[in-house]
């Protein structure tokens, strides 16, 4: 909608107010993370650290196996994405461009995954993981998500848009079947893959409940879970500056990526809404 100049001032004022309210919590914890431990126990708010320090960040590295958590998170998020890209590509291609008996029923059975809360199947999946001997492994954290209805749904839409003539022409040139999929369909669907990748990576970087249920030691634990456990130890609970430093360290990289690729992230999440 076009807006006339005199409308713009209140629009800016309201957006500025809302933006500040949403941003202030982040600003506050960031400043807290650079304060000295006892500085926060002041009855008058001090916004800026009196003696800015990095000691909290070093303290976090001593107090918890931060890099271990980081590595686990990277392995889980990217390893999972790698497998998902294969499963969703094949399934989406079949659902988009092939005809076979039971296709519609199978597609609905796929969508069931979107209709349930993953938490509501956590108990039985826990039993399955125990029976498979995978308790307390990174593979267990990935297992329930190796197939992705959302990803399949998203890619199927993209694959459906590829003109039939293109496929026929490619087939005449000897580029059919799996080769058509790999060399023509997949490159054409790159925006779809990107949207899926961003949503998947964010979701699994952030996930807390399933890793909580399925891990018992620090061997496989991820960052968010490590943060939660740290908050409940005596050290973490008593030391706000260190806890805020740990929080900042957990969110720093995803947040930086978001600030750089803002539009991509927002478009991807818009599509996640459309996909359910």
């Amino acid at each position, binding site marked *: 909608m076009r807006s006339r100049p005199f409308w713009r001032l209140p629009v800016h004022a309201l957006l500025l107010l809302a933006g500040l309210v949403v941003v202030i*919590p982040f600003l506050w914890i960031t400043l807290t993370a650079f304060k000295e431990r006892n500085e926060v126990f002041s009855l008058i708010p001090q916004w800026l650290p009196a003696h800015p320090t990095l000691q909290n960040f070093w303290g976090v590295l001593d107090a918890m196996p931060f890099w271990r958590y980081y590595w686990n998170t990277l392995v889980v998020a990217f390893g999972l994405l790698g497998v998902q890209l294969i*499963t969703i590509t094949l399934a989406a291609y079949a659902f988009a461009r092939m005809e076979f008996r039971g296709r519609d029923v199978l597609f609905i059975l*796929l969508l069931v995954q979107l209709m349930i809360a993953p938490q509501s*199947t956590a108990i039985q999946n*826990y039993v399955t993981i125990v029976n498979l001997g995978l308790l307390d492994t990174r593979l267990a954290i990935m297992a329930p998500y190796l197939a992705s209805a959302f990803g399949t749904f998203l890619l199927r839409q993209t694959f459906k848009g590829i003109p039939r003539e293109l496929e026929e022409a490619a087939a005449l040139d000897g580029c059919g079947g799996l080769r058509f999929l790999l060399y023509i369909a997949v490159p054409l669907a790159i925006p779809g893959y990107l949207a899926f990748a961003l949503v998947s990576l964010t979701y699994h970087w952030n996930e*807390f409940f399933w890793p909580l249920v399925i891990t018992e030691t620090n061997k496989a634990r991820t960052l*968010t879970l490590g943060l939660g456990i740290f908050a409940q130890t005596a050290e973490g609970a008593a030391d706000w500056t260190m*806890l805020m430093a740990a929080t900042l360290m957990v969110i720093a990289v995803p947040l930086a990526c*978001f600030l750089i690729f803002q539009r991509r992230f927002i478009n991807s999440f818009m599509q996640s*809404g459309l996909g359910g």
Partner: protein
Amino acid sequence: MNRVVQPNARPGVLAGATIVGVPDRLAMRRRVLAAVRPYLYILPTFFFLFIFTHYPILKTFYLSLFKWNLATPKREFVGLANYLQAWSTPLFWQVLQNNVVFAVGTIPISLALALALALLINQRIRGLAIYRAALFYPTLLPMAAAAMIWLWILTPSYGLVNFYGKALGLPDIHWLGHSRLALPALMLVGIWKRLGYYMVIFLAGLQVIPEHLYEAAILEGAGPWKRFWRVTFPLLSPTTFFVAIMAVIDSFQAIDQVYLMTQGGPGNNTNLFIFYIYQNAFRFFDMGYASAVSGILFLILLGLTVLAFRMLHRRVHYA
């Protein structure tokens, strides 16, 4: 694969038309291959889907018919006793009530704010990207991090909220330890975290409303207020409904903030569905009862999601 098979052509026709003089066995093999290929493509997905989605749904309902304590591995069939137990447990009803209060307290505010912000951001103004980033970034954060941030902000005496609350003459409040304020505090975190996400979904809905409708409304002398209620709101209603259902589902999945901020307390006042299931399954090891509660949650969410999908379908037809 040594030759091309049109995925959607009938294999018999293809083989008969193009291959002359090739032994029947080879044609046969191609026919079989063409017929099973789609199934091979969906096999990896359905393999995992069955083990970790379909099977656990069925098994959850099955297990809900047993008394099964993880500590004593013997299962005893008890029929619907676990469901009856839920029915007669006051805590179950309190958890349900907490979840409904949580949903009712979060959703109308989130939706109204998100829609208002989407309308503001949909204007062509400078600095749009900055405003959008500022409002959207909590979506990216882990709920665990959001919980830490708000634990600190809401903390008694030294937290930001109490600093400025006291400046306004309010008493020093222990938000998360207060029987009436703990749940609203969790709602606040939920609103803060999801607002930007709902906003961009509304934004997507606003952007498909055709410009000429507004032009026609202006020609008819409709002011901004009238244009909103006569054009924007009706055309946006499928989006609104869809976001509302999504928000209800979100509210029934809330667990991370409960686990990290209140552990369901004080006095179960913030005990929500998933946390209740977690407690029964992994603290009291009462797997049968926890399965029954999971089953109930599953049915609630299924009903809501089917509704959401039907709305989505309608929205696709609009666009």
